């Protein structure tokens, strides 16, 4: 595994040991679940709009712009709390297949979001208030939903296998 020494060094930090041996770990984990639930909830609202299944009385661009800041806020909390848990056993997690799957799914969700942002969102004015949404938007919404459900499942899988 690349950076093997780095992961071991991370585990040895006083902060990592403090998290691993006190109530901090369950505390971080409960905040992590709360953040992920909120993150997935806000994404679900955006994705259903992109799929043309909900909130059609509001412009897609407004729905997206008003919800994405919440998504990013929750994502930041999930990353910080996740990193706190990760560092307690960094070398183990980094080699653990469900953890690797979770990271790949997160990366794919990011790519999907960037593609949508820089391609489909550009001509959003053409379909912002339309009764339906274009195929590209629907594909982005469906892909996002599947990837995030996968992230949740992979995350829970880590808890059962590590």
């Amino acid at each position: 595994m690349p950076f093997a020494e780095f992961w071991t060094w991370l585990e040895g930090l006083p902060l990592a040991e403090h998290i691993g041996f006190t109530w901090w770990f369950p505390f971080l984990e409960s905040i992590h679940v709360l953040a992920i639930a909120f993150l997935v909830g806000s994404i679900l609202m955006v994705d259903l709009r992109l799929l043309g299944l909900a909130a059609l009385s509001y412009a897609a661009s407004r729905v997206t712009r008003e919800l994405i800041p919440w998504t990013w806020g929750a994502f930041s909390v999930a990353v910080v709390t996740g990193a706190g848990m990760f560092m307690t056993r960094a070398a183990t997690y980094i080699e653990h297949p469900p953890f690797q799957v979770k990271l790949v799914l997160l990366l794919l969700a990011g790519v999907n979001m960037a593609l949508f942002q820089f391609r489909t969102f550009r001509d959003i004015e053409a379909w912002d208030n339309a009764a339906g949404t274009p195929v590209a938007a629907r594909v982005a919404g469906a892909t996002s939903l599947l990837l995030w459900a996968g992230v949740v499942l992979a995350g829970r899988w880590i808890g059962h296998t590590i």
Partner: protein
Amino acid sequence: MRESLARALTESQAREAAVYLLGNVPGLPPIAQSLHILGIAVVMASIVMVDLKFLGLAVPSQNVSEMIHRLMPWTWWALLLNAVTGLLFVVARPNRYFFNPVVGWKFSMLVPAVALAFVVHRLSTREAGYWERSSGRRLSARVIAAVSLVLWIGVVLAGRWIAYSDYLFFYE
């Protein structure tokens, strides 16, 4: 009553079935828990989003009555999903949940949270625009929203801590 219910469940065939399913269907425990988390995500995207709207914090361009009408059915379906996925674990190990103080905390927050959600939905269904009609009602809506928000956060945190309760009380 709690003792007799726990005993009845422990001796029931439902428990045998739940234990069998959790132990023999590949991946069922994490899958059921993931569905439970996705159910919570729907609660966040429905009643919690309505709470944030009442408090003037989220989705400024959306209309709150329309939101309640559109989103609250999702809350009830999500709670049904979570009752089913949650009960699977409770039925499999009744003693672990029935005599766990954290479960008590979770439900003493869940019950009022559900009651408030019901009131918000019910009054708005009976009279469209109910929560926007007067300044008194707008104020009540904000108070209800603040309490509801705190309760739902507490429910999720307590839910995660159920699994840690042994650890929690050993350290007392």
